[in-house]
């Protein structure tokens, strides 16, 4: 195993992560928080070296409990945000997952998801046309902007995909003709996503785009941080923030103010991972009243939908979403967010308040 142990060594075992980890809040085991997971990573490293050392430095084998410990992390990053020693546990956990995968320790759910993605280019194993929602919309062959819809919006939230494309197409936007999964689920679970990433990059180059725009927080963080930095990556929230004033002033489909109140759920991979907190809020506030959730921005509680947890541990994932719903303030008309994974999880957890994408809110405010 080749984990950067020097970063693990920085852990002073203070246990601050216990107070924040949303998975630990549900499961209650030390192995389900960052401190425990780092100890387990250290044990795995020692185990593979074949040496038994004292106490907490002891060696471990990658049994199913160890796999559960590492694989139940949603990589939400709230431990990183609050770690007094400045450690980034999700980065180390992803490295550990990679080593588990390389040594063949893969769960059935992980295997299924991997096979779906590698066979069909999407997380669902769908064989239908990814762009069928485009209907008779035309895709320019060359453009400055590419809208990267992602698997969830392409197959499950096609209306949101269509609305996003309609908003963006006015500014010279096209799509990849054969968009593949960005690779995020594979990377988060420890698999290799090189082939998919290369294919997407090849198409981007052919289009000649300088900017990729996506409405999925998982796609955003992957395009921005895992792809080579040859193009600019914008979240749909940032793009809307840049253009909302222009959209408010034009004649057609003018953005009007709505007499409603909404709250905003920060997707972890947009917020804590990429510091995008204000753009969605500015867009919302230009349309209607925003009431913050009980925990917001860098403190926002994870909905449980990311990091491969929904795929591998659905009950846990929904338990976390139900707890997140307790943060919703009274009297709001919608929960707005900017990630289809969060939308799905919050809806599936039984939200009484309708959960929508920021783009859906903007579309609601657009007057014909």
């Amino acid at each position: 195993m080749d984990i950067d142990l020097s970063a693990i060594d920085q852990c002073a075992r203070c246990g601050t992560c216990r107070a924040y980890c949303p998975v630990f809040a549900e499961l209650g085991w030390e192995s389900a928080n960052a401190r425990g997971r780092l100890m387990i990573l250290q044990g795995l490293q020692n185990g593979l070296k074949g040496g038994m050392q004292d106490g907490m430095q002891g060696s471990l084998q990658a049994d199913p409990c160890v796999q559960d410990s590492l694989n139940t992390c949603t990589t939400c990053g709230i431990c990183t945000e609050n770690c007094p020693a400045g450690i980034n546990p999700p980065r180390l956990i992803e490295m550990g997952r990679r080593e588990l995968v390389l040594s063949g320790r893969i769960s059935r759910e992980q295997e299924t998801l991997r096979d779906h993605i590698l066979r069909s280019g999407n997380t669902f194993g769908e064989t239908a046309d990814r762009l069928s929602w485009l209907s008779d919309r035309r895709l320019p062959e060359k453009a400055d902007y590419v809208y990267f819809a992602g698997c969830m919006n392409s197959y499950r939230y096609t209306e949101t995909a269509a609305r996003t494309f309609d908003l963006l197409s006015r500014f010279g936007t096209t799509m990849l003709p054969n968009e593949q999964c960005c690779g995020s689920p594979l990377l988060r679970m420890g698999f290799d996503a090189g082939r998919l990433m290369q294919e997407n990059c090849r198409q981007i180059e052919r289009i000649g785009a300088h900017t990729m725009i996506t409405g999925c927080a998982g796609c955003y963080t992957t395009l921005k941080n895992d792809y080579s930095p040859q193009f600019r990556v914008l979240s749909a929230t940032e793009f809307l923030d840049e253009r909302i004033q222009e959209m408010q002033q034009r004649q057609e489909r003018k953005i009007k103010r709505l007499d409603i109140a909404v709250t905003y759920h920060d997707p972890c991979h947009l917020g804590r991972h990429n510091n995008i907190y204000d753009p969605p809020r500015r867009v919302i506030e230009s349309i209607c009243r925003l009431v913050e959730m009980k925990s917001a921005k860098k403190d926002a509680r994870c909905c449980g939908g990311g990091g491969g947890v929904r795929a591998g541990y659905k009950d846990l994932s929904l338990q976390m979403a139900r707890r997140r719903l307790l943060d919703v303030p009274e009297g709001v008309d919608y929960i707005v967010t900017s990630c289809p994974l969060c939308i799905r999880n919050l809806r599936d957890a039984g939200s009484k308040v309708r959960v929508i994408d920021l783009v859906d809110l903007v579309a609601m405010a657009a007057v014909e």
Partner: protein
Amino acid sequence: MQGGVVLDMSGMNRILEIDIENQQVIVEPGLVAETLNLAIKPLGFFFPPDPGSLAMCTIGGMIANNSSGMRSVKYGTVRNYVLDLEVVLADGRVVHTGSKVLKSSAGYDLTRLFVGSEGTLGIITSAGLKVAPLPAARKLVLASFPEAEIAGRSIVEIFSRGITPSACEILDRTTIAVLKMCEPHLALPADGDVILFEVDGTAASTEETAAQIRDACLPLARSVRIASCREEMEEIWAARRLVGAAISKLDPAKTRIYMGEDVGVPIKQIPALIRKVQQISSKLDIPAMKYGHIGDGNLHVALFIDIRDESQWDKLRLAADRIHRAALDLGGTVSSEHGIGLARADLLPEQAGSEAFSLMQSIKKALDPQGILNPGKMGL
């Protein structure tokens, strides 16, 4: 330890009763202290012991280690707040050590025996605790001194004037550097070793006491100021709570090791202790942050090393041993609030004296003849 059973009590985390008329609560041991405070805050009360780890430490752990923290200078330690414990003994009997009465002269004080016993005498399954009314106002005075020893002298001066702050924390310049790096916007003085004095009470009394502290510090300090607002105060306290583990942000190659980290001395010996720790640290060339609850004589020394370098471990062990012995020489303790455990087990007979330690062994034997409860801890 090999072959043992870990009893994780964190699942027993309910608040069983809030009895505000009697200013008491009954809780289970796995309850996190901050959760208790959040529950009783709307009623105008709080559980005063305030370790930096308030957000993650459990009441059972706090009782078992007699923890205290930042406000013990005024409010005392956990021991002062425990009225009754339900304890499962080694033979399976369940006993109550007290009741809801605030005072009792009936028999041995078993409650105080179990507080701080580190799980060696029984398993705490519920606790009756006193809580206190939340103060109406708090003020924070920040005083910067040319050196830690002079800062220590200011404490002696403040107490000799009859002033009792609600918290009194020292942060030496290494600690300040770490804090400034973690929270660059914090307006902490950068020109020396700092003491944070907090006072609580009414708006008028805090105003007056803060001014008295400022006046007492002025002849010794480089600068003294009163925090501008509640937000600034809260930010400074939040940063202070977590500073112990933050050293890696200053130097990622170094890790803070909890050895020699919890010594305490009588208040007037604080300057001598600080001087001694500085000598040990510089002689062994081990960097140290010094911070802690200096108002009750408790100094946290954070020694940090590259843990992959075995020679640094040797120096660390030596430094910790010397720090412990320095505290004992000054009439102090090797642990003010973290406990003995395994790490300091060999020092307990020395601190307690052989007769007192032998008495502890007898108590342990009477309650746990087979040595099944937390064996080896405290050297028992």
